[in-house]
């Protein structure tokens, strides 16, 4: 499975004005630059750099990160929902990988 797969988890339903938790896990090695023990060559860093959280295409939060975040990162943020809509996360790494995932919330 490829790097960059993820789980985006939000409650399926919420009340208007409720603050809900948006949780996510993304597969990524999140490695800092390091030296290959055999060849002595430097293996470049490979990690996520940025994640944007959108709700109905409006930017809610941006997370910038380095290799200090654990492998297969978990993150959680909150979102105040006033209407039904689509939660979207867009994330990219330092090698040009870019992915997105969506989830739906019904607000009553």
């Amino acid at each position, binding site marked *: *499975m490829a790097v960059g*797969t993820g*789980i985006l988890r939000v409650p399926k339903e919420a009340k208007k004005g409720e603050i809900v938790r948006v*949780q996510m*896990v993304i*597969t990524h*090695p999140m490695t800092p630059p390091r030296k290959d023990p055999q060849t002595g060559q430097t293996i470049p860093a490979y990690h996520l750099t940025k994640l944007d959280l959108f709700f109905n295409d409006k930017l809610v939060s941006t997370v910038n990160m380095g290799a200090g975040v654990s*492998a*297969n990162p*978990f993150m959680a943020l909150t979102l105040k929902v006033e209407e039904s809509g689509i939660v979207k996360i867009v994330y990219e790494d330092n090698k040009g990988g870019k992915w997105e995932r969506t989830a739906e919330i019904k607000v009553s």
Partner: protein
Amino acid sequence: MRKKVVLGVFTVGALVGGILSTKAFAQTDRELTPEEEMRLVQEFNRMLAEGVNPGEIWYEVGKAAIKKYNLDKCDLGLGPGVFKGAAAQLPRYFADAGKVMDLETRVGWCLQKYAGMTQEQVLKFVRECWGKTGNCVSEYDGIIMYLTMESNGHKINVNLKDPHVKKMFEIGKQIYYARLGPWDFNCATCHAGTKEVRIRATRLWSADRPGEAGQAVSIFPKYLVRWGLPMTMHYRYAECIRQMRWPEFIPHSDLGVALSTYLYGLANGTEIKAPGIGR
């Protein structure tokens, strides 16, 4: 060592203009007892278990792999392709194979039968991520994760009334206590006894403390944060046996089945909650 830490804190504290309040000092200065530390490590594990478990990613991997390898024909004891709750009643006796099998051994059997793999190919498939860290994702781990998670919420129910199963349980129990190898270990060295102990910082579960065997096995496959992958039960056996300085463990062997029968037998009645998460 301690002195250094305190000194280090002091230096940093002095340098940043005394921002480090006395709170930081108090924390470093007070010696915690091993028991207090054990509680705090348990607290760490509870915090780790909050939120989404990265191990859940393997569920989708497994779902795809089951199609790819024709495992929807696989009968885990409730009929071909019936997976809901199936893992909870394993190990059990399978007439078609003529022996008791646990989940992983049965999946190996099915891989040979329905995916055309040889035994060697199966073993290679099983061990794809063994000893690896980083971003190793194996389809086998996915399959075991998927099949176990399909039993989430079901209670472990090993049929110890079946004489085949009962016999395997007894063999497993004796293996559990067999002192062997150049370091004289058995499973019970670490995982028995009523006294709560730890190995380095890790609290050890015990077969002699009620409920702990259940808590231990019901969360496998368990996502290990230090390797970034889920550890299946047979990988767990292999790791323990490696640490015991015995020869290398062969997955899907009767040894694995005997240990599973004993441990899941002890765990009867515990709800499956996969994946767990730990160090």
